[in-house]
């Protein structure tokens, strides 16, 4: 694990309700624009917004917190990467046990974690003091071996 400290942190705490997904998405865009690097293009921003939407929707729909809990969205800006963290205190899940979607069946659901894992460079899920913590890292300049660093 990289132990360096972020240069900046931005936090949004909001009620676990679907109506706030757009707020979280808008903040993703604002945070990415605020970093002000040429390497942060539309593709980078879209991926961060997608990952946050998937992670927050998972919490709202599946953690048992819908309309009665809170989500903490934390952006940690480092010199070379953006770490986006989604925290909740719901029932959690084992990210390693989430299956890859069956693409031939075109199922209605089951794509969220797949999209996060394939679009981010590093994904880590931990439970600390009752908080489920999903950390999603995207480097500003992707490492050549980005496939190898996915967890």
């Amino acid at each position: 694990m990289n132990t360096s400290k972020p240069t900046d942190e931005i936090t949004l705490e909001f009620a676990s309700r679907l109506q706030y997904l757009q707020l979280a998405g808008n903040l993703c865009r604002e945070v990415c624009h605020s970093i002000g690097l040429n390497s942060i293009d539309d593709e980078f921003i879209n991926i961060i917004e997608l990952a946050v939407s998937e992670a927050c929707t998972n919490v709202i729909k599946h953690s048992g917190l819908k309309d009665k809990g809170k989500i903490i969205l934390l952006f940690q800006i480092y010199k070379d990467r953006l770490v986006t963290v989604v925290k909740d205190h719901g029932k959690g899940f084992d990210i390693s046990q989430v299956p890859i979607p069956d693409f031939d069946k075109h199922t209605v659901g089951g794509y969220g974690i797949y999209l996060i894992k394939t679009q981010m460079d590093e994904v880590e899920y931990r439970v600390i003091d009752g908080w489920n913590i999903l950390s999603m890292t995207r480097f500003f300049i992707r490492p050549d071996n980005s496939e190898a660093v996915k967890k």
Partner: protein
Amino acid sequence: MTISEETLNTIVILKFKGRLDASSAKAVKDKVGLLVKNGRPLLVFDMEAVDFIDSSGLGVLVASLRTVNKVEGDIKIASLQAQVRSIFELTRMHRLFEIFDSSTAAAESYTEQTLD
């Protein structure tokens, strides 16, 4: 997200604007359900003004397709923005839906099918 509706003969073109995610999925599901109930299952989804879609948005598109297919209807997709098309391709949804460059082309494809 907003949904506006245009009719071209027997075909209904739904124009979506905004984000298609879990917060807007129910509006799409309800709209499609109402059209099917009224006997209008030949649909075009015009996505020109959709700037964001996630897996919940895709999910309601698939569910809607299943709903109209049960009554011999169909959904054709038109005018995807690049980032939305990318999500379709990542999840292989571009193999499930017919995708057109414009809602006019999508609507005309129904007519061509009828002539066939």
